[in-house]
């Protein structure tokens, strides 16, 4: 029966109301998990706070498992789910640029909105930077238009890429996540011993 809106079960007019409600839930969870603090977020790179990894991996794992069960039960049609298309080389470049931006800015777009909500000036500057960055990208788009569309692999799934079933990949991913949870917990304990407290 799902997804509800593409199937026409919920009329299109509700689209934006639902977007707002989902956004509120998303923002609430982000803020409540501590993503409104850039020092909290970047802790994942220095080993003193792995909250990003924990929240992120748990969320991916829960959603991944849920989607596949729901598909199995016939509650949701995976064929109608938007699978992000893969453009190999632009995505590699983009991810690397984002990685550097992540370390410098200490936010990602979603978390910066919640940080603005609780009054962080750095988050406002970050969002301003985002605006400028996308503007620059559009302005200079003709120079790398060809690159932008290169390496198109279509809506390929992880399972298709590695030649395994998506369910098997889910299991592998869960195991990796659990191992990561354990390892980062040990690391965090060790790093925090040698660290001074920091203000938020």
């Amino acid at each position, binding site marked *: 029966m799902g997804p509800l809106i*593409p199937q026409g079960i919920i009329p299109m007019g509700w689209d934006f109301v639902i977007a707002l409600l989902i956004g509120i839930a998303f923002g609430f969870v982000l803020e409540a998990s501590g993503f409104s603090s850039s020092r909290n977020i970047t802790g994942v790179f220095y080993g003193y706070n792995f909250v990003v990894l924990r929240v992120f991996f748990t969320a991916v794992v829960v959603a991944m498992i849920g989607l596949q069960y729901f598909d199995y039960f016939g509650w949701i049609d995976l064929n109608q789910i938007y699978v992000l298309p893969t453009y190999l080389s632009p995505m590699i470049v983009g991810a690397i640029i984002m990685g550097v931006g992540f370390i410098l800015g200490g936010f990602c777009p979603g978390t910066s909105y919640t940080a603005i909500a609780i009054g962080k000036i750095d988050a406002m500057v970050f969002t301003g930077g985002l605006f400028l960055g996308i503007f620059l990208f559009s302005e200079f788009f003709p120079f790398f238009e060809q690159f932008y569309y290169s390496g198109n692999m279509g809506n390929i799934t992880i399972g298709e890429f590695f030649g395994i079933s998506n*369910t098997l990949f889910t*299991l592998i991913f869960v*195991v990796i996540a*659990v191992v990561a949870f354990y390892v980062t917990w040990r690391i965090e304990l060790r790093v925090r011993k040698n660290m001074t407290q920091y203000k938020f």
Partner: protein
Amino acid sequence: MNKNYIILMGILILLAAGLLVLPLKNNSKQLDPEKLMWDIVQPTRYVSTDEVAKMIIERDPLLVLVDVRPTEDFQAFSLPTAFSFPVDSLATDDAIPALTFDKRNLVLYSNDDLKSDQAWIIAKRLGLKNIYVLKGGLNRWIQTIIQPEAPAESASEAEFNLYAFRQGASQYFTGGSISIEQGPQAEVNVSRKKKAKAAEGGC
């Protein structure tokens, strides 16, 4: 470490492993055989030649005529606006997208009921909706629309009205509107819907 964490992680791994042991699911969107049988025994899939003639004359935008006869037959003669889709094409992967029209009514026809009925059953099984069969096919089309038989004098007024309509339709399909009659293939300008488009996302 809190033992609840161990339980949590255990649950996650179990859930993921559970996905693997689930029996293979019939992943297709094919119609359940029981429902298909239910549809088969209903006569509701048939539309009469008169209805179709009326729809063609009124240029009903919801009508999509599908000729399931072999291509040669289609080229020799076809109903106005029809497009050719031989029964064999149902075996290809393109069948579903090619026959998916948003909220429009597909009417299959062949020489009589048999081939169109068979195509209907397969299309229905493939999960297509809003498909119908032209009752009596082209044979009845000729009998009723192109060469209508005058009712007996004792016939009811309704029958005479029908006959009058058929005579008009006959005129329309043979003499009155050669432009339509002669260029059906050229007019196959059916706006086809692409495969159910996945919702677009983006960040």
